[in-house]
């Protein structure tokens, strides 16, 4: 019997090629999307879980409160983690990390800039599962100036040579001896590194780090098994109190330490200063939802087409029943058929995946290159998917088809039921609601990205080249490079600064005029020279720029932005005093600064963040802020030529370090990388959802057309024109799509509003988006259904009426 069914099903597929291919293609695309998203979601969820101690590792962060405002960061100071180990027995071990910026690394003639350098305690190998290929995990990083390389990096510098014992020169000033080679960090890690340098180096060479208040490093602790980290967290305020509580009280600051489970960092932690860009649990939910819905759309296609085609199967059902088949047997047969469809679809889906995996990788900026066949859950997972889809898609048609009464069917008395048609309409509305939501979402994401790119940032970001890492050079060197470059043809202006939009920047506490001593404010600081504002096209609203001619400017003058003036409640800011604690003075005295100008707000960070109050200074001491960037404004046109000139001057200036630079606009735009990826993903999935939906609509419309052939022939005989017939056939579907629009709009509005709220500055969702969405969906529906409608309408009515 089974063989009979199988043969029958295969023959059925073969005979109804159009129907079968639409069904299988729809299911396959849906499944491919689903598998892809599932793989991505599983990878997101797998972050950091490969560490043997994953469940026992916690990151220590702090929350700093000053003037009523709190900020959290995943940072601690050097003594904190060791203190926790010695103070609390449940803390078994701790490792400190310090991130090194872009660093030039030289071995012999080979010199590259490296971004992935971390300083780490040797305990990193005890706590995390980073297996050493060479070297002794017990002492590889115990001594200062030692380093462990990842395999890839080791090959990059040393090729086939054994790197152990060799030295790498970092930033032209530190020689690190290689003591080990570690396996490359798996991609599903919330932080990665290429080179690990010993933290002892920093302990020895940078004494300022040992202050409790210099919170600049990362720390992870290993707890004893089955220990509640919240209990430990509750004890931490005492640790702060004991070690520098008094100091904090003096300056009106409170610091609270907190712990984050390692496995929740990637998806749930989005603080300033994360070690790397983390994922987002919202996106995991969003895309899981999309996966489920795309699969549902594909199943709905199947249900729709199967019930629409029911008339075609009715005779068979009738015959089988007269032969004595019971209903349950028929149900089993039909479900078996849909599982067969599902099986064929999954095979096609795998082919599609192989084809489109690289494309997905380039869209998401992450390659899912792991050969998925090797995953142990993959094959069973697929089988579950096949069964699930087969059941979801096959159940309703099976129950519906098997319900036919044999006498009625065989007398040819079966009419396409009205309820059945209505049920199909509901399904089409469901499909299109989802597709339209995605279309609207795509439009809104692209609107926002467009807005973000075109909005006035308050400075001119084009044609600005920035040379980073100027802090390696002395003040006099910086000045001489600046002077040399400003003389070049094609260079408009050259300026030095501590930060540039999109990068850098730090905060310090200030006491603006009118605030009492316990109300000190944590405010962003930027240090610039007198050329920076004009070079960047940042406008002064009132007052004046810094001037070299005025000696006090480099000692006690500051410029603030509009937001700062507003926050301090100053109508007239010029001449106001802003005090800051004097780090040189032991008993906490104050230094006074006078406001000499107010600049128009400009965006130092991405449009996700609101413009913050900003204090701009010109003096060099006692601010810890150091000049790190040299910005060069170029004349438009012939930029390549000018860049050659600049590179040439650089090699005269310092031949040891390769010329390193970036364009300000590109660097600023990089902040929206994740948003752009999201946009591309939503676009891809909405295209696919629309495609699947259209396949279904195409199939459905052809069945409706088939069913209505007689009616349409009659209408034609009565004198209906072709246009009239087409309109008649389109009307029904257009109505469904319009209805779907009505359902989709609020849905898209709510979801996208939430996304837009992640931007401090964003477009409003206007009616325009929805009108456009309606138009697009309508055009798609008309094109899909139109073909069939025209085909039916031009059919000779005699053909349809002959066989009665």
């Amino acid at each position: 019997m089974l063989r009979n069914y199988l043969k029958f099903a295969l023959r059925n597929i073969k005979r109804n090629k159009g129907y079968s291919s639409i069904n299988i293609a729809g299911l396959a695309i849906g499944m491919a999307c689903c598998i892809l998203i599932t793989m991505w979601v599983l990878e997101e969820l797998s972050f950091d879980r490969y560490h043997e101690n994953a469940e026992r590792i916690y990151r220590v962060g702090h929350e700093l409160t000053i003037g009523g405002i709190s900020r959290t960061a995943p940072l601690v100071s050097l003594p904190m983690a060791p203190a926790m180990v010695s103070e609390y027995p449940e803390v078994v071990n701790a490792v400190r990390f310090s991130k090194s910026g872009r660093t030039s690394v030289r071995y012999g003639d080979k010199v590259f800039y490296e971004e992935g350098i971390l300083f780490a305690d040797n305990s990193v190998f005890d706590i995390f599962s980073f297996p050493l290929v060479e070297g002794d995990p017990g002492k590889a990083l115990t001594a200062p100036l030692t380093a462990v390389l990842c395999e890839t990096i080791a090959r990059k510098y040393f090729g086939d040579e054994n790197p152990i014992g060799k030295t790498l020169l970092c930033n032209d000033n530190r020689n690190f001896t290689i003591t080990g080679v570690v396996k490359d960090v798996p991609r599903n890690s919330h932080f990665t590194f290429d080179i690990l340098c010993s933290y002892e180096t920093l302990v020895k060479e940078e004494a300022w780090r040992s202050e409790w208040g210099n919170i600049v490093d990362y720390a992870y602790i290993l707890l004893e098994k089955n220990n509640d980290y919240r209990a430990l967290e509750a004890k931490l305020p005492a640790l702060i109190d004991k070690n520098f509580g008094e100091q904090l009280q003096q300056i009106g600051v409170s610091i609270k330490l907190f712990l984050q489970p390692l496995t929740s960092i990637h998806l749930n932690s989005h603080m300033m200063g994360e070690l790397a860009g983390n994922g987002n649990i919202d996106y995991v939910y969003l895309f899981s939802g999309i996966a489920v819905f795309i699969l549902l759309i594909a199943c709905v296609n199947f249900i729709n087409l199967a019930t629409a085609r029911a008339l075609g199967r009715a005779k068979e059902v009738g015959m089988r029943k007269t032969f004595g088949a019971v209903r349950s047997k028929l149900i089993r047969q039909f479900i078996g058929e849909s599982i067969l469809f599902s099986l064929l679809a999954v095979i096609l889906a795998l082919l599609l995946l192989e084809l489109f995996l690289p494309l997905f990788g380039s869209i998401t900026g992450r390659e899912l290159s792991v050969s998925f066949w090797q995953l142990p859950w993959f094959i069973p997972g697929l089988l579950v998917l096949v069964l699930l889809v087969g059941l979801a898609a096959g159940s309703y048609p099976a129950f519906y088809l098997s319900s036919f009464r044999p006498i009625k069917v065989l007398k040819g008395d079966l009419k396409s039921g009205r309820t059945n048609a209505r049920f199909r309409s509901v399904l089409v509305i469901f499909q299109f609601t989802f597709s339209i939501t995605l279309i609207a979402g795509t439009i809104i994401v692209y609107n926002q990205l467009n807005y973000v790119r075109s909005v006035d940032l308050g400075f001119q970001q084009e044609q600005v080249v920035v040379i980073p890492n100027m802090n390696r050079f002395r003040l006099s060197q910086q000045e001489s490079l600046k002077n040399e470059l400003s003389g070049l043809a094609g260079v408009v202006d050259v300026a030095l600064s501590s930060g540039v939009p999109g990068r850098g920047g730090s905060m310090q506490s200030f006491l603006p005029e009118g605030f009492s001593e316990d109300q000190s404010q944590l405010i962003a600081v930027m240090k610039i020279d007198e050329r920076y504002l004009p070079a960047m096209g940042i406008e002064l609203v009132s007052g004046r720029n810094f001037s070299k001619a005025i000696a006090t400017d480099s000692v006690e003058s500051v410029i603030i932005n509009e937001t700062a003036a507003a926050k301090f409640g100053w109508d007239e800011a010029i001449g106001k005093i802003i005090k800051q604690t004097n780090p040189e003075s032991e008993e906490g005295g104050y230094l006074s600064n006078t406001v000499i100008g107010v600049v128009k707000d400009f965006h130092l960070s991405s449009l996700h963040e609101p413009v913050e109050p900003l204090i701009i200074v010109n003096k060099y001491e006692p601010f810890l802020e150091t000049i790190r960037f040299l910005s060069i404004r170029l004349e438009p046109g012939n930029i390549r030529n000018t860049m050659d000139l600049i590179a040439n001057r650089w090699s005269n200036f310092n031949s040891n370090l390769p010329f390193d630079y970036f364009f300000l606009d590109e660097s600023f735009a990089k902040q929206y990388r994740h948003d752009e990826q999201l946009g591309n993903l939503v676009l891809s999935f909405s295209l696919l959802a629309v495609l699947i939906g259209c396949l279904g609509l195409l199939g459905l419309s052809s069945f409706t057309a088939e069913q209505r052939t007689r009616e349409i022939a009659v209408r034609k005989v009565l004198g209906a024109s072709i246009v009239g017939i087409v309109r008649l056939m389109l009307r029904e579907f257009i109505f469904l799509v319009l209805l779907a629009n009505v359902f989709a709009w609020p849905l898209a509005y709510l979801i996208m509003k939430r996304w837009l709220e992640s931007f401090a500055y964003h477009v409003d969702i206007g009616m325009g988006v929805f009108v456009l969405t309606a138009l697009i969906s309508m055009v798609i529906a008309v094109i899909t259904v139109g073909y069939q409608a025209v085909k039916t309408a031009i059919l000779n009515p005699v053909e349809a009426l002959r066989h009665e």
Partner: protein
Amino acid sequence: MIQLRNITRYYASGSLNTYVLRRINLDIREGEFVCVMGPSGAGKSTLLNIIGMLDDASEGEYHFLDYNVHNLKEKQRSQLYKEYIGFVFQSYHLIDELTVYENLETPLLYKKVKSSQRKSMVCDTLDRFQIVGKKDLFPSQLSGGQQQLVGIARAIIAEPKLILADEPTGNLHSEEGKKIMELFTRLNEEGVTIIQATHSEQNASYSKRIIYLKDGWLVDNL
């Protein structure tokens, strides 16, 4: 009114042509009541379809009123039959989704008759066929004879000059069939030209002229 000259209709099947109509010559004047008879497969329906311009002759000329139908384009033809011809089918071909009233109204919609006029025309017709009480019923709620009544009402509502009826009583029992034939006679007396295809001698007896078809040949033209 109708002149058929050497009308031939064949279907290509493989390398051979299957002839359905062979060199038919036929003249029908306005006001005639013609019956086309012959065994199944003789070509009766095809002849009616060609006269009704729903089908094309493979060869030959067809003149309808002052038009050379064989030279007309699809659109002009549709214009022509919309204007002058009403169709009645063996299986009624009412639109299941529409009520009796709406079924009657449909041809008027396609002729772009104004709403108020449409209403009065439909009402007149309902009245004339004595089916006012059934106007809100769907075809499935009617008996076969009643459905055919509606079918004929629909065919004449637009006041055609010619009614083509293909086995109009084929699905009806004799009593119902008789009524339909009487209706046709009355319509013919009012001046409508009627051509019907039928097996039934009894039906044929109502018409003034009988044409016999056999294997596509016109064998007798009384």
